[in-house]
């Protein structure tokens, strides 16, 4: 894998070696994001579009490469226990910043900027979107101009949370000094035109529309970036973005083309560009509601642990529903090259991915047999099975509004109807569905449906926080204003114990084994979560744009400094 990547990189490098001549020699590059960025400050917005746009200007100490391996950016090297950067008890990590590093305004980057970044995100009343990155930190201090020491309150098996990855880049202390806490929104200029260390500097920022950049004159590699100027246009839809790169050639790079595979193929036939794809940890899945969402229950008791679901709480029913699905067909219809059928909640990295493939073959007969054996038979001849106590098995299946998801709904509905369930579909506007409004009955947390479908992933390469979502105390309920990540309302002390253990285990192999066991608990063993597709990322690049390496573990624009124009 590694060798192949290096070889491919070498080939690309050979083919276009002369293009690297000097900074700014390749003119202008046009990038299109069909979701328009609304700020350049990733601490004020957690939106992917905003964080990725900001990654052209702001950089972290270290980030992940296309294989999920960590590479130092502003830091000299990645600290580990072996090289002494991380203490044996995992409570302290020491970063050393590269020598001679300058901000785009010419001032030197110091350890104080890193300390300030921590203060900025943890300031009271600032509503920092990346707060989760800075949990459990006791102190961040500057040992000298280039050395930062992060002390944790308890052992951190994964100490690479703060200042690593595109979500928590370093901001300049001088520029944001007056923007702490509640003052954050008053610093419009700083939020829109941050001084950074990245290859490009903002010259014009228009909210939700377009951002213009010029090359950073103080960038650490004097030969980069190859482009003198850059434009990042936002807005429209994925189709139009793909068209602008692959059919008309107006743009050089289009981000995240969520389109059906045959549509992408059609666009690629335009010949001006090509789609590129890569896989991360994003899994499209069906979540099963273990509690009863029936509207007949009084408000406040619907979808709460007080009432278990009449039949979905039976593992046999869930297994039947899982094996009734033809995942390969779903991939073919919805994602093509950019999808893989999966039975896992954690599909990658290899260390954490379980070898669970049992669900991949559709088996309608076994599904029917499972239901028959459980006493779920059609007693009144209407084509729909009833539970042993006579309740018809009618499933309300909700998801957000999105063309591919609606195709999935249609297909899965058919398979489930074939095994004798009745299915009602509902699609909800994404801004309501993914919102946390406690007053809305349609949020995915409130889960007033029997099953629901969406995709989720975890930042970086460590699934600990992701798997902790299924702890008992994470169950959304009226008492918690329907907040909480345990969507299925699963509660098992044995699972909670595994999470606690994972939090105390530093050794990688042991962590992997634990994480795989937890993944299997949620999927293979109980089918509480029915994973469908491991979703890759598809973007498009122009034929004349070189140096692009699609990265699903970090920002797609992570190596924009290396991009160049090839003829």
């Amino acid at each position, binding site marked *: 894998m590694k060798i192949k990547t290096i070889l491919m990189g070498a080939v690309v490098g050979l083919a276009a070696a002369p293009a690297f001549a000097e900074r700014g020699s390749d003119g202008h590059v046009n990038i299109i994001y069909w979701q328009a960025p609304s*700020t350049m*400050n990733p601490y*004020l*917005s*957690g*939106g*992917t579009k905003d964080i990725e746009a900001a990654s052209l200007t702001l950089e972290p100490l270290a980030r992940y490469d296309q294989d999920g391996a960590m590479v130092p950016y502003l830091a000299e090297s990645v600290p580990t226990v072996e090289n002494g950067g991380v203490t044996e008890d995992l409570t302290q990590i020491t970063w050393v910043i590269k020598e001679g590093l300058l901000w785009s305004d010419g001032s030197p980057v110091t350890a104080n900027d890193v300390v300030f970044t921590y203060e900025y995100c943890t300031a009271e009343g600032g*509503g*920092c*979107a*990346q*707060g*989760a990155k800075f949990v459990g930190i006791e102190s961040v201090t500057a040992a000298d101009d280039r050395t930062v020491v992060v002390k944790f309150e308890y052992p951190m098996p994964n100490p690479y949370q703060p200042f690593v990855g595109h979500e928590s880049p370093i901001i300049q202390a001088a520029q944001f000094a007056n923007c702490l806490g509640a003052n*954050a*929104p*008053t610093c*419009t200029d700083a*939020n*829109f035109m941050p001084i950074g260390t990245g290859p490009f500097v903002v010259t*014009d920022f*228009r*909210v*939700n*529309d*377009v951002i*213009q950049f010029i090359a950073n004159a103080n960038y650490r590699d004097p030969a980069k970036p190859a482009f003198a100027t850059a*434009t990042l*246009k*936002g*807005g*429209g*839809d994925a189709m*139009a973005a793909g*068209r*602008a790169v692959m*059919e008309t050639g*107006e*743009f050089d790079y289009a981000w995240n083309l969520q389109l059906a595979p045959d549509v992408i193929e059609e666009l690629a036939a*335009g010949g001006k560009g090509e789609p590129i794809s890569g896989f991360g940890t994003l899994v499209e899945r069906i979540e099963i509601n273990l509690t009863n969402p029936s509207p007949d229950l009084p408000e406040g008791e619907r979808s709460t642990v007080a009432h278990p679901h009449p039949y979905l709480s039976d593992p046999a029913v869930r297994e039947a529903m899982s094996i009734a699905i033809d995942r390969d067909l779903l991939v073919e219809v919805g994602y093509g090259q950019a999808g893989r059928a999966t039975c896992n909640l954690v599909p990658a990295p290899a260390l954490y991915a379980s070898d669970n493939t049992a669900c991949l073959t559709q088996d309608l007969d076994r599904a029917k047999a499972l239901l028959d054996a459980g006493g779920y038979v059609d007693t009144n001849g209407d084509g729909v099975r009833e539970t042993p106590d006579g309740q018809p098995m009618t499933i309300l299946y909700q998801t957000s509004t999105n063309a591919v998801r609606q195709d999935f709904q249609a297909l899965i509905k058919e398979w489930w109807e074939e095994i004798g369930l009745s299915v009602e579909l509902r699609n909800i*506007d*994404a*801004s*309501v569905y*993914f*919102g*946390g*409004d406690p*007053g*809305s*009955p349609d*949020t995915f947390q409130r889960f007033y449906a029997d099953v629901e479908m*969406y995709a*989720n*992933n*975890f*930042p970086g390469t460590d699934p600990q*926080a992701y798997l902790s979502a299924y702890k008992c105390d994470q169950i959304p309920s009226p008492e918690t204003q329907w*907040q*909480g*990540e345990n969507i299925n309302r699963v509660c098992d002390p044995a699972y909670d114990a595994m999470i606690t253990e994972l939090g105390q285990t530093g050794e990688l192999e042991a962590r992997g084994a634990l994480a795989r066991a937890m993944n299997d608990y949620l999927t293979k063993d109980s089918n509480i979560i029915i994973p469908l597709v491991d979703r890759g990322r598809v973007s498009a690049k122009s034929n004349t744009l070189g140096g692009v390496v699609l990265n699903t573990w970090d920002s797609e624009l992570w190596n924009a400094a290396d991009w160049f124009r090839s003829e």
Partner: protein
Amino acid sequence: MLTYTIRRLLLAIPTLLFIALVIFLLLELSPGDPMAQMPMSIPPEVKERMREALGLDQPWWVRFYLWLYQFFVVEPQYWIDGLFGTDLAEGAQRIISFQSKSPVFDIIAERIPQTLWVVGMSYVVGVLIALPIGIASAYYQYSWFDQIGTFISMVGFSVPTFFTGVLLIVVFSVNLGWFPSIYDTTLVVDSWASLGQQIKQMAMPVFVLALYNAAQISRFMRASMLDNLGQDYVRTARAKGMREKVVVLRHVLRNSMIPVVTVIALGVPQVFGGAIITEQVFKVNGLGQLLILAVQGNDIPMVMTLTFIFAVLIVLFNLIADVLYGLLDPRIRYD
């Protein structure tokens, strides 16, 4: 008429305040959350703190009062400061968008040029072609001209812009390569060459919108002309030996303008409401795109400010229409 106008203007103030309250309550009641567009990997506690930073932990009446104060006191102060270099505002908090954490009015100002170029221009073009077509269609009723006009306008109106827009892009951008498929909002028109570029990038969206506007207005113009052409006074005027041109363009047209004035006046505020789908198809990123993104992102200050400005224009232009009725037909009296 003057007293009527003044009375209506005074009455507009409580009306608008009431409208503001209703819009605010509607947004308040509407399900949705500014955090909906954050990735799911951000934990709920962090989202809760982000909500607090936006002031969402305050009760609605506090936030409504704050918005009113900012809209009617703070923003005008900044405006005056900007004009005269004074410092009335003294750094008071302006209306801040939830999404970008920047002043709402700055963003609106950024959007005005492309909205006027594209949506405004298409409205003007639409009205200018609709009126003669409507008049001619009525005068030569059931002629070839009328039949073709009817056909084009009904098809133009009934085929949605999400289809016609994409069709135009496929034909003129992808296959012929005449026009860009993406509107460049940063283009500055300062030379003949850049004007040419501007016209090129405007051509398709303006065509789509103008067709839609013209279809609607020409239908009303035609119907109203037909009604009046059959009236007794037309026969009288002709019998008196007036020239046909005078009869049609002075007498009939003037009497036929009332429904048309209504429709045109209703359409002007829509220009500022933007054209949501057309803007999205051609990536114009005008006020329509701003509004829809704000609605989807539950950016309450932005939606509130945009819809309120929209409400002011509606009240204003409906008043203008009412005044025009009186000028067109002096028999209409409101007092």
